[in-house]
């Protein structure tokens, strides 16, 4: 199988990730629940994961909350920061993991920046959203549908200057672009563990500047007599038994990313994405490509996008078709009615992979 659905999850994990999961399953008990060797080993494993994440993302280990996925982290962050009725600026490329929690809370959503690959316009529209009274902002780093890299450093700087707290959704950027809690000045940054960080599914990270409100209440292994969750991070936001094998795998994945180099990974993925976009254009597809694009490209085939993805699947190509849980992004790009076929590259991107994909994609137009 030629796997090109890394926007959903990375599939071919480095072998050390699998080894770390297996090792944790056979040697780690419940962390924070005992003083014996297997429980202590689990404690150390979780701390090592926090340390690795802290090194990659510019924060301290206690600011790293281990979550089930990016959506979990975003829900904690949004519930912590946003109050009902608050005016919240969101980009025109948000995933439902941002949009739905905001609507569920009764926030007043102000959408800014709907032009693909135009960072100047995005920034200008964001400033306008602040002028309209936005009290907080939630925005993605990279569109999960189109791969558009938003100007998050500039948006963050504007937020800091105006005293606007913000949440960054790094679902598509963690592991391939610089993401730094301290430098950006974010209140929260949420990311999955299983995409660019190459960990197992069921893992994620929430980086917290200072505190947060628990989504779940329960045991933390500390301050057991208190009726409320402890004030200290990360335990405040982590109730119940942790996914130790998953986080062991995530730690191994992050170590792989650190050793390979985030820039190197980006270059490898981006190069293939651009080659793929050019190839699709030559085939006469409607391709969404431009400057400030990461490792994801969407196209509209000359048939129903789901049918096209199915034809590709029968030839061993794994891509995703439809709305990609981001109707707002499709509304912005004008593809709400058709949807798109999304091709998203990962750490194992190669010219051979791209060529094999394009060879099969050519059959879609015959």
């Amino acid at each position, binding site marked *: 199988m030629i796997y090109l659905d890394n926007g959903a999850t990375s599939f071919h994990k480095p072998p050390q990730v699998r080894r770390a999961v297996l090792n944790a399953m056979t040697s780690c008990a419940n962390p924070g629940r005992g003083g014996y060797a297997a429980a202590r080993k689990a404690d150390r494993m979780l701390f090592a994961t926090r340390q690795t994440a802290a090194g990659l993302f510019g924060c301290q280990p206690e600011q790293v909350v281990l979550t089930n996925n990016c959506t979990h982290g975003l829900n904690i962050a949004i519930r912590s920061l946003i109050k009902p009725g608050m005016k919240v600026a969101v980009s025109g490329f948000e995933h439902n993991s941002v949009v739905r929690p905001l609507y569920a809370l009764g926030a007043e959503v102000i959408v800014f920046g709907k032009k693909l690959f135009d960072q100047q316009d995005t920034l200008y529209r964001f400033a306008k959203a602040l002028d309209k009274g936005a009290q907080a902002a939630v925005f993605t780093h990279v569109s999960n549908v189109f791969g558009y890299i938003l100007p998050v450093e500039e948006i963050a700087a504007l937020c800091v200057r105006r005293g606007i707290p913000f949440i960054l959704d790094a679902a598509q950027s963690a592991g391939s672009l610089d993401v730094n809690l301290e430098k950006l000045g974010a209140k929260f940054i949420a990311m999955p563990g299983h995409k660019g960080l190459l960990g197992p599914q069921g893992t994620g990270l929430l980086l917290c500047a200072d505190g947060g409100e628990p989504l779940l209440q329960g045991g933390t292994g500390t*301050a057991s007599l208190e009726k409320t969750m402890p004030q200290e991070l990360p*335990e405040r936001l982590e109730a119940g038994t942790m996914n130790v094998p998953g986080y062991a795998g995530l730690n191994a994945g992050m170590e792989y990313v650190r050793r390979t180099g985030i820039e190197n990974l980006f270059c490898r993925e981006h190069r293939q994405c651009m080659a793929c976009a050019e190839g699709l254009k030559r085939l006469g597809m409607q391709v969404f490509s431009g400057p400030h694009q990461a490792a994801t490209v969407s196209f509209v085939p000359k048939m129903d996008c789901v049918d096209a993805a199915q034809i590709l699947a029968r030839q061993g190509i794994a891509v995703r078709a439809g709305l990609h849980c981001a109707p707002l992004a499709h509304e912005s790009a004008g593809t709400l009615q058709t949807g798109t076929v999304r091709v998203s590259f990962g750490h194992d991107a190669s010219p051979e992979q791209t060529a094999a994909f394009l060879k099969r994609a050519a059959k879609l137009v015959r």
Partner: protein
Amino acid sequence: MEKYMITFRSVTYAQRGEAVLRSAGFRCALGRTPRWMEEQGCGYALRLTCPEIAPVQQLLRREKLSWRRIYEQKEDGTMEVLEL
């Protein structure tokens, strides 16, 4: 050399405290806080042996690592909370 025990409410703070102290050359061990020391329930503690506690406190403060209490071991082996 004196023996001390520093208690923490958070296992993660205790773990970072252990890492910080070890990298500064202090010998310490992380474990569960004895039940009698922790009226709020379970916690974690660092046991360490050093000539005086002040440099340890300075280091932890510099790293913004808040602790709960510091105990000192008396000659008869009992632990007594230090009034600091």
